């Protein structure tokens, strides 16, 4: 068996890890920007499929299928993002005789369009957020305001996923302003500019349910996750189980998700997402018909390898698991390490990984595609690594995740590591008081670095520069790439 992973970054490595354990040989595809990416060397084979621009590589269905055929792959795993929710891709793969590791294309078509997904959920008896089930045409904003939908509203990409292509509008004017940008973003990210409106639920918790279906009506549920910590609708910290759910609420939400899965004769992994409002009312929002970024927290509490189950199901067509085999132990939390600078409004950063030290020890899992010497570019998503911690209870998981974040060292570019630690150590997070607007008015508890730390840093910096100045100029082994010696010398001499 030979499996092509139509993705990049940490999720490509994640999938190939399971393949390596299963003895399945793997094929990476990569863009020109990724020619030295870890997934290309981790795979048994690797095929370049085009230019850096996603539409010419990772979003190019024909290039990917051509690669699969030329190299003799018999299965395709789409990962998340890129083409993973595109029914045409699944259909084309199956038409080409490949096993597509995902839902049936017709299911993806229903769910990939967030509007028809809402209809399907309503039909399965789920409570759905109010709002029209129609897409928003250009310049149609004024019409929409007449619908039973009040501001603030979210403008969302119908083909969206991963929090991309979502904009908030608090008034008709704002709505008019963001519609165009949202559409452009949707086009750029998903190749489809269809957008729609949804009310903004305030003080909401984002809770989602992980299901696995055999395509014949059998649905196994792997419990739920709470993903309320979001920045610009992008999840940042996720955990399992959801700390706020009562046992009866847990039964209620997981059974709702299973019911929707059954009605759809859902095949493969899927995540049914809900918003829980202040009154513990659940509203269906959408289904992600693929593996999720945050799947590791579910794996850590259940002990199951979701990618393994997904692949075995796709290959055998049978789902031997029973719901009674799914047991939960402890709590797990994931933090997303992003190449973004929290001190500069989370703008993307890029650079070469000049130093790397990843955390370890009990209860720590690192899912990354990083290596020292790797170039992080601005071409794709800013997610560069995921750190997941498990503990016997939520507090232990938090303590471990903080410990892991404190061990993580990434040199060469700025990341959100410090920001993630600040969230975890904040009181509301610690007691589980988290909503989707948590980060809107978040201010870190700490008053910045301790004086002893800045003092040590000052000593180290002064000593470093002093030694640079006083070393023999001819010494060759100090002329690293990092150091623009001439520039420094000028700077220093001018002040003397």
């Amino acid at each position, binding site marked *: 068996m030979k499996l092509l992973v139509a993705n990049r970054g940490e999720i490509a490595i994640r999938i190939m890890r399971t393949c390596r354990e299963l003895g399945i040989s793997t094929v990476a595809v990569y863009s020109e920007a990724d020619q030295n990416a870890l997934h290309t060397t981790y795979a048994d084979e690797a095929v370049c499929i085009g230019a850096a621009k996603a539409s010419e590589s990772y979003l190019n269905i024909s290039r990917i299928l051509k690669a699969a055929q030329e190299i003799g792959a018999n299965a395709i795993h789409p990962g998340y993002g890129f083409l993973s929710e595109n029914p045409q891709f699944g259909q084309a793969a199956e038409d080409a005789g490949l096993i597509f590791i995902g839902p049936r294309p017709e299911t993806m078509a229903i769910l990939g369009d967030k509007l028809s997904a809402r209809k399907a959920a309503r039909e399965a008896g789920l409570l759905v957020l109010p709002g029209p089930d129609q897409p928003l045409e250009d310049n149609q904003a004024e019409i929409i305001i007449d619908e039973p939908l009040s501001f603030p509203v979210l403008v969302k990409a119908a083909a969206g996923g991963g929090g991309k292509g979502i904009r908030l509008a608090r008034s008709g004017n704002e709505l008019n302003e963001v519609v165009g940008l949202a559409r452009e973003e949707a086009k750029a990210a998903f190749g489809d500019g269809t957008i729609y409106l949804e009310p903004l639920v305030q003080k909401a918790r984002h809770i989602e349910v992980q299901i696995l279906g055999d395509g014949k009506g059998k649905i196994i549920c792997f419990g739920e996750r709470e993903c309320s910590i979001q920045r610009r609708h992008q999840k940042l910290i996720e955990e399992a189980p959801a700390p706020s759910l009562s046992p009866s609420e847990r039964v209620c939400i997981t059974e709702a998700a299973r019911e929707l899965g059954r009605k759809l004769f859902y095949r493969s992994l899927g995540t049914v997402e809900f918003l829980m409002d202040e009154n513990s009312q659940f509203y269906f929002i959408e289904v992600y018909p693929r593996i999720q970024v945050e799947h590791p927290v579910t794996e850590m509490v259940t002990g199951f390898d979701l990618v393994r189950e997904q692949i075995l199901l796709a290959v055998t067509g049978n789902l031997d698991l029973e719901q009674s085999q799914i047991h939960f132990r402890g709590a797990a939390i994931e933090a997303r390490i992003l190449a973004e600078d929290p001190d500069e409004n989370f703008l993307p950063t890029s650079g070469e990984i000049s130093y790397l030290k990843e955390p370890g020890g009990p209860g720590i899992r690192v899912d990354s595609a990083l290596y020292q010497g790797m170039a992080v570019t601005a071409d794709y998503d800013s997610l560069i690594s995921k750190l997941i911690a498990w503990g016997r209870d939520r507090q232990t998981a938090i303590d471990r995740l903080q410990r892991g974040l404190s061990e993580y060292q990434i040199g060469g570019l700025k990341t959100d590591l410090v920001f993630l630690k600040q969230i975890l150590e904040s009181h509301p997070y610690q007691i589980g008081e988290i909503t989707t607007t948590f980060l809107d008015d978040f201010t870190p508890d700490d008053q910045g670095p301790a004086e002893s730390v800045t003092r*040590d840093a000052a000593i180290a910096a002064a000593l470093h520069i002093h030694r640079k100045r006083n070393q023999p100029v001819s010494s060759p082994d100090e002329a690293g790439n*990092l150091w623009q010696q001439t520039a420094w010398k000028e700077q220093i001499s001018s002040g003397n």
Partner: protein
Amino acid sequence: MANYRVTIANRTYDVSIEDDQLVVNGDHISYDMDSLNDNGLHILRQPNRNTEAYLEPNRQGVYDIQIEGNHLSAEVLSGFQSSSKKARQDTGSIHSPMPGLIVDIMVKIGDRVKKGQTLLIQEAMKMQMKLRAPSSGVVKSILIAPGSQVEKGVLLVSLAPTG
């Protein structure tokens, strides 16, 4: 003797170094420091405390320092001179705030623009950003073309004051 003024997180340290003597803000410090790999990892040893510090010079006179779980910027100046005043905000230049693609340029040279008006759209990691005019003025020069990939901090457009 060599003197350095180091500014980190709004704190200022005057560091004097002579042979093995080190004085910080008047306190004599007993220390030793090794460079552990050639990429910036250092171990600073003081009495009863060893500290790992990862040092990266990121631009002239500024270090990125990872130390004890903190990510700090240190400005180092030679001598105990005052820290250079921050350059007065230049309201006539639009620099790229991140590395990424210039998707669209909404203005041409000679256009009159209002403060806050969108001049360019930049895209990185699937996210689009409007780059707006920091002040009203006339477009004096446009230094990139749509479709260009730019690094962070590149001058994109400059404006001349109106009138």
